[in-house]
Protein backbone atom coordinates (compact mmCIF):
# COMPACT_ATOMS: atom_id res chain seq x y z
CA UNK A 1 0.00 0.00 0.00
CA UNK A 2 2.97 2.28 0.30
CA UNK A 3 3.30 2.55 -3.44
CA UNK A 4 2.44 5.80 -5.15
CA UNK A 5 -0.58 5.89 -7.47
CA UNK A 6 1.35 5.55 -10.70
CA UNK A 7 3.12 2.35 -9.80
CA UNK A 8 0.21 1.12 -7.75
CA UNK A 9 -0.38 -2.31 -8.92
CA UNK A 10 -1.36 -2.68 -12.52
CA UNK A 11 -0.80 -6.26 -11.37
CA UNK A 12 -3.56 -6.00 -8.78
CA UNK A 13 -5.99 -4.84 -11.40
CA UNK A 14 -6.85 -8.35 -12.49
CA UNK A 15 -8.52 -8.92 -9.12
CA UNK A 16 -10.85 -5.98 -9.47
CA UNK A 17 -14.25 -6.25 -11.15
CA UNK A 18 -14.46 -2.49 -11.27
CA UNK A 19 -11.76 0.19 -11.65
CA UNK A 20 -12.38 3.87 -12.37
CA UNK A 21 -9.95 6.77 -12.32
CA UNK A 22 -10.46 10.53 -12.35
CA UNK A 23 -7.80 13.25 -12.66
CA UNK A 24 -10.00 15.46 -10.51
CA UNK A 25 -11.92 13.80 -7.68
CA UNK A 26 -14.12 16.89 -7.40
CA UNK A 27 -15.89 15.80 -10.57
CA UNK A 28 -17.29 12.95 -8.52
CA UNK A 29 -17.52 14.52 -5.06
CA UNK A 30 -19.46 17.58 -6.24
CA UNK A 31 -22.17 15.43 -7.78
CA UNK A 32 -22.32 13.16 -4.75
CA UNK A 33 -22.65 16.16 -2.43
CA UNK A 34 -25.77 17.11 -4.36
CA UNK A 35 -27.47 13.85 -3.36
CA UNK A 36 -25.97 13.38 0.09
CA UNK A 37 -29.11 13.74 2.17
CA UNK A 38 -28.96 10.17 3.52
CA UNK A 39 -26.01 8.00 4.51
CA UNK A 40 -26.79 4.97 2.37
CA UNK A 41 -25.85 5.20 -1.27
CA UNK A 42 -26.32 2.43 -3.82
CA UNK A 43 -23.62 2.27 -6.47
CA UNK A 44 -24.52 0.69 -9.79
CA UNK A 45 -21.76 0.46 -12.36
CA UNK A 46 -22.43 -0.66 -15.92
CA UNK A 47 -20.27 -0.31 -19.04
CA UNK A 48 -22.13 2.99 -19.68
CA UNK A 49 -21.02 4.57 -16.46
CA UNK A 50 -21.75 4.94 -12.79
CA UNK A 51 -25.10 5.60 -11.15
CA UNK A 52 -25.33 6.51 -7.47
CA UNK A 53 -28.75 6.30 -5.82
CA UNK A 54 -29.97 7.73 -2.53
CA UNK A 55 -33.51 7.32 -1.24
CA UNK A 56 -35.67 8.86 1.44
CA UNK A 57 -38.81 7.32 3.00
CA UNK A 58 -39.66 5.35 -0.15
CA UNK A 59 -41.14 8.59 -1.52
CA UNK A 60 -38.10 10.23 -2.95
CA UNK A 61 -35.09 9.07 -4.91
CA UNK A 62 -32.04 10.89 -6.20
CA UNK A 63 -29.68 9.53 -8.84
CA UNK A 64 -26.35 10.94 -9.93
CA UNK A 65 -25.11 9.72 -13.31
CA UNK A 66 -21.50 9.87 -14.36
CA UNK A 67 -20.91 8.66 -17.90
CA UNK A 68 -18.03 6.21 -18.42
CA UNK A 69 -16.20 8.67 -20.70
CA UNK A 70 -15.95 11.26 -17.92
CA UNK A 71 -13.49 8.89 -16.23
CA UNK A 72 -9.93 8.63 -17.53
CA UNK A 73 -10.19 4.92 -17.01
CA UNK A 74 -13.37 2.92 -16.59
CA UNK A 75 -13.00 -0.84 -16.51
CA UNK A 76 -15.81 -3.17 -15.59
CA UNK A 77 -15.67 -6.93 -15.88
CA UNK A 78 -19.37 -7.70 -15.43
CA UNK A 79 -22.46 -6.21 -17.07
CA UNK A 80 -23.42 -4.81 -13.72
CA UNK A 81 -21.51 -4.26 -10.49
CA UNK A 82 -23.45 -3.08 -7.47
CA UNK A 83 -22.66 -2.29 -3.84
CA UNK A 84 -23.78 0.02 -1.09
CA UNK A 85 -21.54 2.37 0.93
CA UNK A 86 -21.90 5.12 3.49
CA UNK A 87 -21.98 8.32 1.43
CA UNK A 88 -20.90 10.67 4.23
CA UNK A 89 -17.80 8.55 4.79
CA UNK A 90 -17.10 8.40 1.05
CA UNK A 91 -17.34 12.19 0.77
CA UNK A 92 -14.94 12.72 3.67
CA UNK A 93 -12.52 10.36 1.94
CA UNK A 94 -12.83 12.07 -1.45
CA UNK A 95 -12.13 15.42 0.24
CA UNK A 96 -9.30 14.18 2.43
CA UNK A 97 -6.96 16.84 1.03
CA UNK A 98 -9.51 19.59 1.55
CA UNK A 99 -11.14 19.49 -1.90
CA UNK A 100 -9.25 22.58 -3.03
CA UNK A 101 -10.91 24.78 -5.64
CA UNK A 102 -7.61 26.46 -6.49
CA UNK A 103 -7.00 26.06 -10.23
CA UNK A 104 -4.20 23.64 -10.97
CA UNK A 105 -4.56 21.86 -7.64
CA UNK A 106 -6.60 18.71 -7.80
CA UNK A 107 -6.86 15.33 -6.17
CA UNK A 108 -6.39 12.34 -8.48
CA UNK A 109 -8.59 9.38 -7.72
CA UNK A 110 -8.44 5.68 -8.45
CA UNK A 111 -11.43 3.70 -7.27
CA UNK A 112 -11.33 -0.12 -7.16
CA UNK A 113 -13.70 -2.86 -6.09
CA UNK A 114 -12.83 -6.55 -5.91
CA UNK A 115 -16.39 -7.79 -5.49
CA UNK A 116 -18.96 -8.90 -2.97
CA UNK A 117 -17.69 -8.77 0.60
CA UNK A 118 -14.72 -6.54 -0.23
CA UNK A 119 -14.30 -2.87 0.59
CA UNK A 120 -14.39 -0.08 -1.98
CA UNK A 121 -10.77 1.02 -2.18
CA UNK A 122 -9.85 4.59 -3.02
CA UNK A 123 -6.35 5.76 -3.88
CA UNK A 124 -6.17 9.54 -3.68
CA UNK A 125 -3.14 11.60 -4.58
CA UNK A 126 -2.41 15.30 -4.32
CA UNK A 127 0.99 16.96 -4.40
CA UNK A 128 2.80 13.63 -4.00
CA UNK A 129 0.86 12.66 -0.87
CA UNK A 130 -1.13 9.44 -1.18
CA UNK A 131 -4.17 8.44 0.83
CA UNK A 132 -5.61 4.95 0.73
CA UNK A 133 -9.19 4.46 1.96
CA UNK A 134 -10.99 1.19 2.37
CA UNK A 135 -14.70 1.77 2.77
CA UNK A 136 -16.77 -1.18 3.87
CA UNK A 137 -19.50 -2.16 1.45
CA UNK A 138 -22.85 -3.81 1.93
CA UNK A 139 -25.01 -5.76 -0.41
CA UNK A 140 -26.98 -3.22 -2.45
CA UNK A 141 -30.66 -2.81 -1.72
CA UNK A 142 -32.90 -2.86 -4.73
CA UNK A 143 -33.58 0.79 -5.63
CA UNK A 144 -37.28 1.65 -5.81
CA UNK A 145 -38.62 1.66 -9.35
CA UNK A 146 -40.76 4.78 -9.67
CA UNK A 147 -41.96 3.52 -13.07
CA UNK A 148 -41.60 6.99 -14.42
CA UNK A 149 -41.50 6.68 -18.20
CA UNK A 150 -41.51 9.37 -20.80
CA UNK A 151 -44.59 7.99 -22.57
CA UNK A 152 -46.66 8.78 -19.47
CA UNK A 153 -45.34 12.32 -19.09
CA UNK A 154 -48.18 14.85 -19.18
CA UNK A 155 -46.27 18.06 -18.65
CA UNK A 156 -42.69 19.07 -19.18
CA UNK A 157 -40.76 22.31 -18.98
CA UNK A 158 -37.04 22.97 -19.30
CA UNK A 159 -35.76 26.00 -17.43
CA UNK A 160 -32.46 27.75 -17.02
CA UNK A 161 -31.47 26.86 -13.46
CA UNK A 162 -30.86 30.54 -12.64
CA UNK A 163 -34.58 31.23 -12.68
CA UNK A 164 -35.45 28.31 -10.44
CA UNK A 165 -32.65 29.22 -8.01
CA UNK A 166 -34.27 32.62 -7.57
CA UNK A 167 -37.61 31.00 -6.93
CA UNK A 168 -36.24 28.48 -4.47
CA UNK A 169 -34.31 31.09 -2.53
CA UNK A 170 -37.55 33.03 -2.06
CA UNK A 171 -39.74 30.05 -1.26
CA UNK A 172 -41.37 30.02 2.13
CA UNK A 173 -39.75 27.02 3.78
CA UNK A 174 -42.30 27.09 6.62
CA UNK A 175 -44.75 25.64 4.12
CA UNK A 176 -45.10 21.89 4.48
CA UNK A 177 -45.62 21.40 0.79
CA UNK A 178 -44.61 22.84 -2.52
CA UNK A 179 -47.48 22.90 -4.96
CA UNK A 180 -46.62 22.75 -8.63
CA UNK A 181 -49.17 23.75 -11.24
CA UNK A 182 -48.42 23.05 -14.89
CA UNK A 183 -50.94 23.94 -17.52
CA UNK A 184 -51.26 24.69 -21.25
CA UNK A 185 -53.22 27.82 -20.19
CA UNK A 186 -52.52 30.37 -17.48
CA UNK A 187 -50.76 30.25 -15.05
CA UNK A 188 -48.61 27.87 -17.22
CA UNK A 189 -46.01 27.07 -14.56
CA UNK A 190 -46.63 28.06 -10.96
CA UNK A 191 -44.93 27.22 -7.67
CA UNK A 192 -47.01 27.81 -4.56
CA UNK A 193 -46.35 27.65 -0.83
CA UNK A 194 -48.70 27.82 2.13
CA UNK A 195 -46.65 28.94 5.10
CA UNK A 196 -46.91 30.80 8.39
CA UNK A 197 -46.87 34.16 6.70
CA UNK A 198 -49.51 33.33 4.12
CA UNK A 199 -49.66 31.86 0.65
CA UNK A 200 -47.22 32.69 -2.06
CA UNK A 201 -47.21 31.99 -5.79
CA UNK A 202 -44.31 32.17 -8.14
CA UNK A 203 -45.33 32.23 -11.82
CA UNK A 204 -43.27 31.72 -14.97
CA UNK A 205 -44.64 33.02 -18.23
CA UNK A 206 -44.26 30.38 -20.92
CA UNK A 207 -42.49 32.71 -23.34
CA UNK A 208 -39.87 33.78 -20.80
CA UNK A 209 -36.21 33.70 -21.88
CA UNK A 210 -35.63 31.37 -18.99
CA UNK A 211 -38.06 28.81 -20.39
CA UNK A 212 -36.25 26.69 -22.96
CA UNK A 213 -39.05 24.25 -23.57
CA UNK A 214 -42.72 24.29 -22.67
CA UNK A 215 -44.73 21.13 -23.36
CA UNK A 216 -47.82 21.02 -21.19
CA UNK A 217 -50.80 19.06 -22.40
CA UNK A 218 -53.12 19.07 -19.41
CA UNK A 219 -53.65 21.20 -16.30
CA UNK A 220 -52.13 19.42 -13.32
CA UNK A 221 -51.74 20.59 -9.74
CA UNK A 222 -49.75 18.44 -7.34
CA UNK A 223 -48.28 18.91 -3.91
CA UNK A 224 -44.89 17.56 -2.80
CA UNK A 225 -43.48 17.50 0.71
CA UNK A 226 -41.08 20.40 1.09
CA UNK A 227 -38.85 18.27 3.32
CA UNK A 228 -38.40 15.81 0.44
CA UNK A 229 -37.72 18.46 -2.19
CA UNK A 230 -35.39 20.58 -0.12
CA UNK A 231 -32.30 18.39 -0.65
CA UNK A 232 -32.69 18.84 -4.41
CA UNK A 233 -31.71 22.50 -4.07
CA UNK A 234 -28.11 21.30 -3.70
CA UNK A 235 -28.27 19.84 -7.18
CA UNK A 236 -30.04 22.92 -8.43
CA UNK A 237 -27.20 25.10 -7.18
CA UNK A 238 -24.69 23.11 -9.27
CA UNK A 239 -26.76 22.84 -12.40
CA UNK A 240 -27.20 25.01 -15.48
CA UNK A 241 -30.52 23.62 -16.73
CA UNK A 242 -33.37 21.74 -15.16
CA UNK A 243 -36.13 19.70 -16.68
CA UNK A 244 -39.34 19.49 -14.63
CA UNK A 245 -41.72 16.71 -15.61
CA UNK A 246 -44.88 15.21 -14.16
CA UNK A 247 -46.58 12.03 -15.26
CA UNK A 248 -50.25 11.01 -15.30
CA UNK A 249 -50.01 9.87 -11.64
CA UNK A 250 -48.63 13.20 -10.52
CA UNK A 251 -45.12 11.85 -9.90
CA UNK A 252 -42.44 14.51 -10.25
CA UNK A 253 -39.12 14.15 -12.04
CA UNK A 254 -36.48 16.83 -11.77
CA UNK A 255 -33.48 16.39 -14.04
CA UNK A 256 -30.52 18.66 -13.44
CA UNK A 257 -27.86 19.12 -16.05
CA UNK A 258 -24.54 19.73 -14.30
CA UNK A 259 -21.37 20.93 -15.97
CA UNK A 260 -18.27 19.78 -14.07
CA UNK A 261 -14.91 21.57 -13.59
CA UNK A 262 -13.79 20.33 -16.99
CA UNK A 263 -16.94 21.41 -18.81
CA UNK A 264 -18.29 17.87 -19.19
CA UNK A 265 -21.96 17.18 -18.63
CA UNK A 266 -23.43 14.94 -15.94
CA UNK A 267 -26.96 14.50 -14.65
CA UNK A 268 -28.60 14.44 -11.28
CA UNK A 269 -32.18 13.28 -11.21
CA UNK A 270 -34.82 13.39 -8.49
CA UNK A 271 -38.10 11.51 -8.35
CA UNK A 272 -40.74 12.45 -5.84
CA UNK A 273 -44.19 11.05 -5.05
CA UNK A 274 -47.06 13.49 -4.74
CA UNK A 275 -48.20 14.25 -1.20
CA UNK A 276 -51.35 12.24 -0.66
CA UNK A 277 -52.93 14.43 2.02
CA UNK A 278 -52.94 17.22 -0.52
CA UNK A 279 -55.29 15.43 -2.86
CA UNK A 280 -58.73 16.27 -1.46
CA UNK A 281 -59.80 18.27 -4.49
Amino acid at each position, binding site marked *: *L*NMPLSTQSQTDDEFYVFVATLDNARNLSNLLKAIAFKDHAIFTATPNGLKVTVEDSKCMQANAFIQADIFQEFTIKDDLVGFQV*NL*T*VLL*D*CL*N*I*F*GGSTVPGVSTALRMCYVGYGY*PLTLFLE*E*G*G*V*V*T*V*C*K*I*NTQEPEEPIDFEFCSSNVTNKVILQSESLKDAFSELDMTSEVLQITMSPAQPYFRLSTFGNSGNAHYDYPKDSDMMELFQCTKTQTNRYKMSLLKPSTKALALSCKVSVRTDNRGFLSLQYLVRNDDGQICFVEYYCCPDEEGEEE
Partner: protein
Amino acid sequence: MKFRGKIIDVACLNHFTRKSHICSKTLTKTCVLRLTPDNLFFILSEKVANGGVSMWCELAQANFFDEYQMEGVTQEDNEICLEVAPENLARALKTLQNAKALKVKLTKKHCPCLTIPTLSTVSRVVMHDVPVDVIPRKLWHEFKEPHMPNFDVSIYLPPLKTLKNVVDRMKNLSNFLVLEANMSGEMNLKIETDLVSVTTHFKDLGNPPWGEDGSQRDSDAMAQARLDVRRLQQFLMGQQVNPTKALCNLVHQRLVHLILLHEDVSLQYFIPTVA
Protein backbone atom coordinates in the same frame (compact mmCIF):
# COMPACT_ATOMS: atom_id res chain seq x y z
CA MET B 1 8.01 43.19 41.05
CA LYS B 2 7.58 45.49 38.09
CA PHE B 3 6.87 45.10 34.43
CA ARG B 4 6.21 47.57 31.69
CA GLY B 5 6.70 47.34 27.97
CA LYS B 6 6.08 49.46 24.95
CA ILE B 7 5.87 48.75 21.25
CA ILE B 8 5.76 51.78 18.97
CA ASP B 9 6.90 50.24 15.72
CA VAL B 10 3.71 49.33 13.85
CA ALA B 11 5.34 46.39 12.10
CA CYS B 12 6.50 45.00 15.44
CA LEU B 13 3.09 45.60 16.90
CA ASN B 14 1.31 43.69 14.15
CA HIS B 15 3.90 41.00 14.48
CA PHE B 16 3.35 40.72 18.22
CA THR B 17 -0.44 40.55 17.99
CA ARG B 18 -0.15 37.94 15.27
CA LYS B 19 2.25 35.84 17.31
CA SER B 20 0.26 36.10 20.50
CA HIS B 21 -2.72 35.12 18.42
CA ILE B 22 -0.90 31.93 17.44
CA CYS B 23 -0.32 31.21 21.11
CA SER B 24 -3.80 32.05 22.32
CA LYS B 25 -5.48 30.08 19.53
CA THR B 26 -3.68 26.93 20.49
CA LEU B 27 -4.68 27.16 24.09
CA THR B 28 -7.92 26.50 25.81
CA LYS B 29 -8.37 27.60 29.43
CA THR B 30 -5.58 29.30 31.28
CA CYS B 31 -1.97 29.71 30.43
CA VAL B 32 1.09 30.99 32.17
CA LEU B 33 2.91 34.07 31.01
CA ARG B 34 6.49 33.98 32.20
CA LEU B 35 8.57 37.12 31.89
CA THR B 36 12.36 37.14 32.07
CA PRO B 37 14.73 39.97 31.15
CA ASP B 38 15.17 38.50 27.65
CA ASN B 39 12.09 36.50 26.87
CA LEU B 40 8.35 36.14 27.13
CA PHE B 41 6.97 32.63 27.45
CA PHE B 42 3.45 31.36 27.02
CA ILE B 43 3.19 28.04 28.82
CA LEU B 44 0.42 25.52 29.07
CA SER B 45 0.60 22.40 31.12
CA GLU B 46 -2.59 20.46 31.37
CA LYS B 47 -3.21 17.93 34.07
CA VAL B 48 -3.11 14.36 32.82
CA ALA B 49 -6.83 14.04 33.53
CA ASN B 50 -7.54 16.74 30.93
CA GLY B 51 -5.50 15.06 28.22
CA GLY B 52 -2.08 16.07 29.47
CA VAL B 53 -1.23 18.35 26.58
CA SER B 54 1.50 20.84 27.23
CA MET B 55 2.82 23.75 25.26
CA TRP B 56 5.86 25.97 25.45
CA CYS B 57 6.04 29.12 23.39
CA GLU B 58 9.06 31.39 23.53
CA LEU B 59 9.32 34.94 22.20
CA ALA B 60 12.49 37.03 22.35
CA GLN B 61 11.38 40.39 23.79
CA ALA B 62 13.98 42.38 21.85
CA ASN B 63 12.32 41.37 18.60
CA PHE B 64 9.07 42.99 19.60
CA PHE B 65 9.47 45.62 22.29
CA ASP B 66 10.91 49.11 21.95
CA GLU B 67 10.91 49.48 25.70
CA TYR B 68 10.98 46.56 28.08
CA GLN B 69 11.56 46.99 31.78
CA MET B 70 11.14 44.32 34.33
CA GLU B 71 12.13 43.63 37.86
CA GLY B 72 11.56 40.11 39.04
CA VAL B 73 10.55 38.83 42.43
CA THR B 74 14.13 39.07 43.70
CA GLN B 75 17.48 39.76 42.08
CA GLU B 76 18.35 36.06 42.01
CA ASP B 77 14.94 35.05 40.77
CA ASN B 78 14.60 37.82 38.26
CA GLU B 79 11.37 36.54 36.74
CA ILE B 80 7.65 37.11 36.89
CA CYS B 81 5.16 34.29 36.49
CA LEU B 82 1.53 35.16 35.79
CA GLU B 83 -1.51 33.05 35.12
CA VAL B 84 -3.79 34.55 32.54
CA ALA B 85 -6.79 33.50 30.47
CA PRO B 86 -5.52 33.63 26.88
CA GLU B 87 -9.02 34.51 25.78
CA ASN B 88 -8.96 37.76 27.78
CA LEU B 89 -5.52 38.66 26.54
CA ALA B 90 -6.50 37.93 22.96
CA ARG B 91 -9.58 40.12 23.32
CA ALA B 92 -7.49 43.02 24.57
CA LEU B 93 -4.92 42.58 21.82
CA LYS B 94 -7.63 42.38 19.19
CA THR B 95 -8.37 46.07 19.64
CA LEU B 96 -4.76 46.73 18.70
CA GLN B 97 -5.46 46.02 15.08
CA ASN B 98 -5.84 49.71 14.30
CA ALA B 99 -3.60 50.96 17.06
CA LYS B 100 -0.43 52.99 16.66
CA ALA B 101 1.28 51.77 19.81
CA LEU B 102 0.99 49.25 22.58
CA LYS B 103 1.85 49.76 26.19
CA VAL B 104 1.53 47.03 28.72
CA LYS B 105 2.04 47.33 32.44
CA LEU B 106 1.63 45.12 35.47
CA THR B 107 -0.69 46.98 37.82
CA LYS B 108 -2.40 46.46 41.14
CA LYS B 109 -6.05 47.36 40.89
CA HIS B 110 -8.78 45.38 42.65
CA CYS B 111 -6.56 42.47 41.69
CA PRO B 112 -3.26 42.20 39.82
CA CYS B 113 -3.79 43.15 36.20
CA LEU B 114 -1.97 43.53 32.95
CA THR B 115 -3.12 46.98 31.95
CA ILE B 116 -3.05 47.68 28.26
CA PRO B 117 -3.96 51.20 27.18
CA THR B 118 -4.08 51.36 23.41
CA LEU B 119 -3.99 54.56 21.46
CA SER B 120 -6.20 54.03 18.47
CA THR B 121 -5.98 55.92 15.19
CA VAL B 122 -8.89 58.14 16.16
CA SER B 123 -6.95 59.33 19.23
CA ARG B 124 -9.07 57.59 21.76
CA VAL B 125 -7.46 55.68 24.56
CA VAL B 126 -8.89 52.26 25.25
CA MET B 127 -7.95 50.72 28.59
CA HIS B 128 -7.90 47.01 29.06
CA ASP B 129 -7.32 45.45 32.45
CA VAL B 130 -6.63 41.77 32.02
CA PRO B 131 -6.79 40.11 35.44
CA VAL B 132 -3.86 37.86 36.26
CA ASP B 133 -2.82 35.61 39.13
CA VAL B 134 0.72 35.98 40.33
CA ILE B 135 2.26 32.53 40.66
CA PRO B 136 4.36 32.11 43.80
CA ARG B 137 7.97 31.02 43.49
CA LYS B 138 7.37 27.62 45.06
CA LEU B 139 5.29 26.64 42.00
CA TRP B 140 7.72 27.90 39.36
CA HIS B 141 9.27 24.51 38.88
CA GLU B 142 6.09 23.47 37.09
CA PHE B 143 6.81 25.96 34.35
CA LYS B 144 10.42 25.22 33.47
CA GLU B 145 11.28 24.48 29.88
CA PRO B 146 10.30 20.89 29.21
CA HIS B 147 13.26 18.74 28.37
CA MET B 148 13.46 17.14 24.98
CA PRO B 149 12.16 13.59 25.30
CA ASN B 150 14.37 10.68 24.37
CA PHE B 151 12.65 10.18 21.07
CA ASP B 152 12.69 7.16 18.76
CA VAL B 153 12.05 9.10 15.56
CA SER B 154 12.47 12.74 14.62
CA ILE B 155 10.99 13.96 11.34
CA TYR B 156 10.08 17.20 9.56
CA LEU B 157 6.35 17.82 9.27
CA PRO B 158 4.61 18.10 5.88
CA PRO B 159 3.06 21.50 4.97
CA LEU B 160 0.78 22.33 7.90
CA LYS B 161 -2.16 23.20 5.66
CA THR B 162 -2.11 19.75 4.05
CA LEU B 163 -1.72 18.18 7.47
CA LYS B 164 -4.66 20.21 8.80
CA ASN B 165 -6.93 19.22 5.90
CA VAL B 166 -6.18 15.54 6.41
CA VAL B 167 -6.56 15.69 10.19
CA ASP B 168 -9.84 17.61 9.93
CA ARG B 169 -11.32 14.98 7.61
CA MET B 170 -10.05 12.16 9.77
CA LYS B 171 -11.71 13.83 12.76
CA ASN B 172 -15.05 13.52 10.92
CA LEU B 173 -14.46 9.79 10.65
CA SER B 174 -12.86 8.86 13.97
CA ASN B 175 -11.95 10.23 17.41
CA PHE B 176 -8.56 8.56 17.44
CA LEU B 177 -5.72 8.64 15.00
CA VAL B 178 -2.42 6.80 14.73
CA LEU B 179 0.57 8.90 13.78
CA GLU B 180 3.63 6.91 12.74
CA ALA B 181 6.96 7.90 11.26
CA ASN B 182 10.39 6.50 10.58
CA MET B 183 13.92 7.73 10.00
CA SER B 184 13.52 7.39 6.20
CA GLY B 185 11.40 10.52 5.96
CA GLU B 186 8.07 8.73 5.93
CA MET B 187 5.08 9.63 8.02
CA ASN B 188 1.61 8.04 8.01
CA LEU B 189 -1.66 9.12 9.55
CA LYS B 190 -4.18 6.33 10.03
CA ILE B 191 -7.69 5.89 11.27
CA GLU B 192 -9.76 2.77 11.46
CA THR B 193 -13.46 2.37 12.28
CA ASP B 194 -16.24 -0.13 11.57
CA LEU B 195 -17.02 1.72 8.37
CA VAL B 196 -13.68 2.70 6.95
CA SER B 197 -9.92 2.62 7.23
CA VAL B 198 -7.91 5.55 5.93
CA THR B 199 -4.14 5.93 5.68
CA THR B 200 -2.38 9.03 4.40
CA HIS B 201 1.24 8.49 3.38
CA PHE B 202 3.72 11.36 3.41
CA LYS B 203 7.19 10.67 2.09
CA ASP B 204 10.51 12.48 1.50
CA LEU B 205 9.88 14.65 4.53
CA GLY B 206 13.46 14.40 5.73
CA ASN B 207 14.77 13.78 9.21
CA PRO B 208 16.58 16.45 11.24
CA PRO B 209 20.30 15.66 11.61
CA TRP B 210 20.13 15.35 15.41
CA GLY B 211 18.28 12.05 15.15
CA GLU B 212 21.07 10.37 13.28
CA ASP B 213 23.70 9.90 15.93
CA GLY B 214 23.77 7.13 18.43
CA SER B 215 20.70 5.07 17.81
CA GLN B 216 21.00 1.77 16.01
CA ARG B 217 17.40 2.04 14.91
CA ASP B 218 16.31 0.46 11.61
CA SER B 219 15.56 3.50 9.46
CA ASP B 220 12.38 1.95 8.06
CA ALA B 221 10.96 0.97 11.44
CA MET B 222 7.92 3.03 12.36
CA ALA B 223 7.46 4.64 15.75
CA GLN B 224 3.75 4.91 16.50
CA ALA B 225 1.52 7.06 18.65
CA ARG B 226 -2.24 6.78 19.04
CA LEU B 227 -3.69 10.22 19.68
CA ASP B 228 -6.94 11.94 20.46
CA VAL B 229 -7.57 13.67 17.10
CA ARG B 230 -8.83 16.82 18.85
CA ARG B 231 -5.41 17.39 20.45
CA LEU B 232 -3.71 17.37 17.09
CA GLN B 233 -6.44 19.57 15.64
CA GLN B 234 -5.95 22.03 18.48
CA PHE B 235 -2.28 22.30 17.65
CA LEU B 236 -2.96 22.81 13.94
CA MET B 237 -5.79 25.27 14.41
CA GLY B 238 -3.69 28.32 15.17
CA GLN B 239 -1.08 27.68 12.50
CA GLN B 240 -2.07 29.69 9.46
CA VAL B 241 1.46 30.89 8.86
CA ASN B 242 3.98 28.28 7.83
CA PRO B 243 6.89 28.28 10.23
CA THR B 244 10.52 28.25 9.13
CA LYS B 245 10.82 24.75 10.52
CA ALA B 246 8.20 22.33 11.72
CA LEU B 247 9.16 19.00 13.16
CA CYS B 248 7.87 16.12 15.14
CA ASN B 249 9.59 13.86 17.65
CA LEU B 250 7.98 10.55 18.46
CA VAL B 251 8.44 8.42 21.52
CA HIS B 252 7.03 5.07 20.48
CA GLN B 253 3.60 4.55 22.05
CA ARG B 254 4.13 7.34 24.54
CA LEU B 255 4.40 10.86 23.25
CA VAL B 256 4.37 13.19 20.28
CA HIS B 257 6.49 16.31 20.60
CA LEU B 258 5.81 18.95 17.96
CA ILE B 259 8.11 21.90 17.41
CA LEU B 260 7.42 24.95 15.30
CA LEU B 261 10.23 27.41 14.76
CA HIS B 262 9.34 30.84 13.46
CA GLU B 263 12.04 33.48 13.07
CA ASP B 264 11.49 34.86 16.53
CA VAL B 265 8.99 32.53 18.13
CA SER B 266 9.37 28.91 18.97
CA LEU B 267 6.49 26.70 19.92
CA GLN B 268 6.67 23.27 21.45
CA TYR B 269 3.63 21.12 21.90
CA PHE B 270 3.42 17.78 23.68
CA ILE B 271 0.62 15.30 23.09
CA PRO B 272 0.56 12.11 25.13
CA THR B 273 -0.74 8.94 23.54
CA VAL B 274 -4.02 7.30 24.48
CA ALA B 275 -4.44 3.58 24.94
